[in-house]
């Protein structure tokens, strides 16, 4: 039996094994590093855990010590865990916080939400804004950009509010297609799906064209750099260090031939290279080898990690545009209704092309509900959405206006502005080369994400699961890729692709569906007034006119 003379508790003063762990032997200064806040004795009104939950927590804690961490033998089964309303998060300081909200996901402050919306909306349409402003005329273009921003903002606000006006049903995890299904049944669901797919596949086709373009230029830059080929005479453009070129100087801008000019260097090596490295003939096919495998991945979470590249590329473009504008200077003359040799009128009939591009540029209506769901202060949603649109509009305006204004008009006509404004810079320009490489890399990571979204929406609707079998998914991917290759081969005008797909999907998801749903909701609750009905019908008409205008202008 124990020695009675020995003190009952291992004496603090005598214990040598304590001394190297603490500085002071005063028991009051040694605090435990981990506090289980089960019953901290305070009478302040803190949230307390229910007794059963607290006991279960103690059990789970203990049982987890009894087995290896990978062993599931003593892991609590689902039916034993308390329901979400009773789950508390312990803070090591003794309070217990209840988890509010069903998903328990952390809520974001406003600034993060605004940034997420800006980041999602900023797409490749930024490259087409200068061309769009040129097509509409400088003044009219700016006016249209502001007006379209406001209009799409209002429609986005309508989309955001649409689940809230559904009575009696819990719509907290609904997205816009679910709302359409509620109001219009299967027709609503399928039509919203179809138009959403139009926007996604349109974006993917644009991506293919752009990636071919960027890959072509990158390869050309490297080839020219290695072989010291100087192409300064072969393209029509300005002289000097900051060259701006006009790739298709005297050709009808609606017909795009493969216009390669061999001047000076009639080297057969260059000819062979140009034959095998051609923007429309061969590179779209080379891309298949790179991208088709990526599309077949089961999960896109790997690619989602690269979203920061998109932000980086937009910021780089802004910097690039600023530098170019600074270097090239301003070239602006106002000719109101007549075009001159070098300048375009301020008001042009071709303005529907700009509205089409802007519909896709300001498009976020299919995922705005999800993006706003994690906003910490839900009452600020409208304000944050408006700020995000303002930010996006300012970015587009900045890039569009600066490129348009800085385009060197004494030698080159403004009409030369390409739908992808990077095409107006030669492949030997280092700044632009970096931009193209950056964008190429970024697009390679976004392309599988878009493919994944198409697959999820289409397969989910038709087959009920996201990955029915490899054959299904592979066929879908082959179809999408073929569309991209076809366009890149025969009609690589991204301005047209963007405006047609933008106007089409915008018709349903931006203009028609939100307005109709709002009017139906008001009618059902008996609040539909004439001004509101007229206003929303006008929006629908504008959407239709937008689409029709694409075909006639």
């Amino acid at each position, binding site marked *: *039996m*124990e020695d*009675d003379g020995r*003190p*009952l*508790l*291992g004496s603090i003063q005598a214990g040598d094994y304590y001394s190297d762990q603490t500085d002071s032997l005063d*028991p009051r200064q040694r605090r435990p590093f981990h506090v*289980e806040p*089960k*019953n901290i*004795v305070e009478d302040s009104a803190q949230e307390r855990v229910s*007794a*059963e939950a*607290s*006991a*279960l927590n*103690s*059990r789970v*804690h*203990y*049982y987890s*010590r*009894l*087995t*290896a961490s990978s*062993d599931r*033998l*003593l892991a*609590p*089964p689902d*039916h*034993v865990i308390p329901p979400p309303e009773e789950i508390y998060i312990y803070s090591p300081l003794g309070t217990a916080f209840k988890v509010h909200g069903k998903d328990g996901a952390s809520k974001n402050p406003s600034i993060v939400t605004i940034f997420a919306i800006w980041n999602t909306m900023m797409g490749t349409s930024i490259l087409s804004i200068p061309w769009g402003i040129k097509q509409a005329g400088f003044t009219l273009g700016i006016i249209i950009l502001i007006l379209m921003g406001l209009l799409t903002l209002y429609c986005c606000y309508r989309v955001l509010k649409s689940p809230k006006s559904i009575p009696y049903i819990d719509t907290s995890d609904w997205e816009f297609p679910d709302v359409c299904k509620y109001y219009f049944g299967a027709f609503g669901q399928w039509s919203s799906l179809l138009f959403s797919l139009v926007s996604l596949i349109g974006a993917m086709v644009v991506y293919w064209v752009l990636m071919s373009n960027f890959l072509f230029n990158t390869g050309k830059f490297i080839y020219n750099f290695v072989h010291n080929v100087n192409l300064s005479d072969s393209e029509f453009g300005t002289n000097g260090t900051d060259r701006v070129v006009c790739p298709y100087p005297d050709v009808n801008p609606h017909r795009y031939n493969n216009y390669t000019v061999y001047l000076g260097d009639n080297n057969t090596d260059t000819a062979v290279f140009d034959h095998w490295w051609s923007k429309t003939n061969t590179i779209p096919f080379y891309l298949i080898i790179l991208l088709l495998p990526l599309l077949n991945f089961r999960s896109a979470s790997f690619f989602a990690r690269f979203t920061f590249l998109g932000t980086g590329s937009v910021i780089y473009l802004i910097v690039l545009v600023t530098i170019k504008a600074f270097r090239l200077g301003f070239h602006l003359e106002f000719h109101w209704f007549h075009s001159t040799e070098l300048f375009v009128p301020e008001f042009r009939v071709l303005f529907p092309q700009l509205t089409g591009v802007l519909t896709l540029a300001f498009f976020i209506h299919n995922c705005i509900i999800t993006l706003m769901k994690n906003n910490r202060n839900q009452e600020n949603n409208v304000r944050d959405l408006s700020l995000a649109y303002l930010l996006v509009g300012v970015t587009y305006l900045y890039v569009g206006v600066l490129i348009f204004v800085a385009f060197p008009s004494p030698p080159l006509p403004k009409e030369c502005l390409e739908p992808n404004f990077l095409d107006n810079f030669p492949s030997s320009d280092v700044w632009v080369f970096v931009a193209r490489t950056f964008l190429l890399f970024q697009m390679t990571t976004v392309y599988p994400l878009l493919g994944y979204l198409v697959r999820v929406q289409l397969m989910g609707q038709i087959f009920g699961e996201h990955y029915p079998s490899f054959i299904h998914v592979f066929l879908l991917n082959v179809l999408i890729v073929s569309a991209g290759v076809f366009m890149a081969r025969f009609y690589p005008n991204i301005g047209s692709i963007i405006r047609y797909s933008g106007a089409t999907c915008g018709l349903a998801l931006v203009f028609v569906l939100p307005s109709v749903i709002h009017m139906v909701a008001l009618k059902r609750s008996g609040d539909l007034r004439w001004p509101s009905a007229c206003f929303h019908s006008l929006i629908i008409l504008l959407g239709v006119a937008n689409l029709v205008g694409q075909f006639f202008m």
Partner: protein
Amino acid sequence: MTHHPNSTCSVRVLLMGKSGSGKTSMRSIIFANYIARDTRRLGATIDVEHSHVRFLGNLVLNLWDCGGQDTFMENYFTSQRDNIFRNVEVLIYVFDVESRELEKDMHYYQSCLEAILQNSPDAKVFCLVHKMDLVQEDQRDLIFKEREEDLKRLSRPLACTCFRTSIWDETLYKAWSSIVYQLIPNVQQLESNLRNFAQIIEADEVLLFERATFLVISHYQCKEQRDAHRFEKISNIIKQFKLSCSKLAASFQSMEVRNSNFAAFIDVFTSNTYVMVIMSDPSIPSAATLINIRNARKHFEKLERVDGPKHSLHMRMR
């Protein structure tokens, strides 16, 4: 027929049941044994070699899978029957409430009872209806009552005590606490002396734990306490601490926890027990309480020794 404890053969507590009924997990939880991966069932548990868990002095816990597997086990079991069932103090039989072969379970249970009657007729029998968390809450009482009736009926002439248990609520702890309570010699005397002790030293609460399992055998409290689950929680905490200590090849001896509102002392008490004293008057110095505990210990040890040598635990609480 009383059994005379052989000096070479220890007194046993048998934990039996069909394989997969949860005995190994139960033992691990009650006795704070680490379950290593490889001892998870790849076949039946042949546990004789691992039965070094001792509690209540020199009771040894033996785990046996009973019935349901291959003929090798059946033969081994049958041939070793007399060895297994000799010198058994307690039989704890575990039934899986979800089992689909009730007839077979009862059959095996009955053959164990026969063996007990032959070899250790004075043994106490406990039946645990386990994994009750898998039954819907509103049906648990009903199902348990049914089983209890069947088991009591089948166990005659032996008397069996039934408990419903689950490792996910307090029932397991309570069942084993009751079992251990019935195995402590002189437990009621211990309890009354404990009350006196607590009142003398002006403690808020005094708990008596069984040494190996930290199951609360008896307690005294002078006022209502808020948390009904505190015994199990304290037990879990100390067992976790014991696990940590054993990793350093140290053994847990005693503990003092103190803040401005209370002081708690955990220390060895008698050969079978630990004591936990809770004082809510912080002005009483630790040394005073510790001296009190030490003096009380001598007294309690005498109580335990009064009824003869430790090994022969005769059945007093029948």
